[in-house]
């Protein structure tokens, strides 16, 4: 459950982002409370994935401000003045955030176990023994302990995505970003990944931002849903409000289209 009356863990204030002439994010502001589970929905090109990529520092912003855990993501204080963040600052900020990608982005030349242990060993100085111990716990949690020595190429899409989730969790981030993590999967493999997300949702304190087209899952999973269109938030509310009683015309039209395409809401 989302706690109330606490400082937000993510604060986005009036950010703008364009790719060439195309304005992806338009004076966008919202904040996320610690432990909140947020679903970001909307038509493609509406900017929801870009938000996650910006939070992961894979894209910069043109203007505006983002605070993560009280610190500015893209700016830092030096000699009392605000300056663009340097590598060390970004490194420190990224420690708080983990991301799972639509296409898994596993390291194809490393076995499942090494995919999970690499980051803690490199970035946190964990010993191989500790990293492997923790990795095996995580692989067990996602149901893949028996695949530890397999290569990614030997896994199904659903298994790959579960490894990718374990890999991101290995760094113990406070915030997890899930970018359409089931969109590239065959329909029969979607559920095994959603089950893992469910488990994380119920059993951890992490703040989670989920970009998804699985409306049924978004409804059950999220404390709060943001409906994006053309780089703006059109509607922001509890899952029941958004999915059952959308106020905005654009939200209604989008949900209608999604339902017509066979998705459960």
């Amino acid at each position: 459950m989302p706690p109330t009356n606490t400082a937000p863990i993510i604060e986005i204030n009036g950010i703008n982002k364009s790719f060439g002439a195309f304005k992806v994010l338009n004076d966008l502001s919202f904040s996320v409370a610690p432990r909140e589970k947020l679903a970001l929905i909307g038509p493609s090109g509406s900017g929801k994935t870009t938000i996650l990529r910006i939070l992961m520092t894979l894209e910069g912003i043109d203007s505006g401000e983002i605070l993560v855990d009280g610190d500015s993501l893209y700016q830092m204080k030096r000699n009392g003045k605000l300056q663009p963040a340097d590598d060390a600052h970004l490194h420190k900020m990224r420690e708080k955030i983990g991301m799972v990608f639509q296409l898994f982005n596993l390291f194809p030349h490393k076995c499942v176990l090494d995919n999970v242990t690499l980051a803690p060993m490199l970035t946190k100085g964990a010993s191989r023994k500790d990293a492997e111990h923790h990795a095996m716990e995580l692989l067990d949690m996602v149901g893949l302990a028996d695949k530890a020595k397999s290569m990614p190429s030997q896994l199904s899409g659903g298994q790959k995505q579960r490894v990718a989730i374990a890999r991101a969790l290995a760094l113990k981030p406070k915030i997890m970003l899930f970018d359409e993590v089931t969109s590239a999967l065959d329909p029969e493999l979607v559920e095994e990944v959603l089950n893992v997300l469910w488990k994380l949702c119920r059993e951890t304190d992490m703040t989670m931002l989920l970009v998804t087209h699985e409306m049924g899952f978004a409804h059950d999973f999220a404390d709060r849903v943001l409906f994006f269109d053309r780089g703006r938030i059109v509607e922001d509310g509890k899952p029941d409000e958004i999915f059952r009683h959308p106020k905005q015309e654009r939200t209604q039209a989008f949900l209608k289209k999604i339902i017509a395409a066979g998705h459960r809401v």
Partner: protein
Amino acid sequence: MGQWAGYLQLILDGAVVTIKLTLMGSALALVMAFLAGLGRLSRFAPVRWLATAYIEFFRGTSIFVQLFWAYFVLPLFGFTLTPLQAGVLALGLNVGAYAAEVVRGAVKSIGKEQYEACTALNFNRWQGLRNVILPQAFVLMLPTFGNNAIELLKASAVVSLISLSDMTFQAQVVRAQTGSTLFPFLTILILYFAIACVISFAIRGLERHLTRGLDGIRS
């Protein structure tokens, strides 16, 4: 037939020099290839310029001229090299310039998603390059590195021009002494081909070894 045995020995002595040149030249070329290839991808403009200047210069001038510079001109500036050192230097720098482009191309061909995974896992640039990008890119470089090594082997014949007694030099000695062209040049033809085959097989073996269990990397 007996008289040829001594001449064959002479050519085999030359083969040892050729193999030595090829190995040492390839080692230098490999180092230069990574330095210049990664240098061209550097964030720092002066490093990129330096790498580009090296690559363009050594690709754009002949190995023959480079060798003569290394052996005959550098001493004028106080750097005296043995023929073997001059040969290794010229061959390594020349082939390294070609191989640098192979390194750059292979590194650039690794998908953006691998770099993004590195960022998301909070690797710094070197950690990502060392652990994620280069191991995958190296597999892509191998076949062309094999070509480069064979090119270097064949180009090594130019060192006979600075009186280093490699295989080609020895073949000319034998030709001068016996008046036969067929024997020495048939022999070195076969030897060059044999050494090239060894390089090909070694590279292919290494490639197979490195791609086990791997299908995500284009080859």
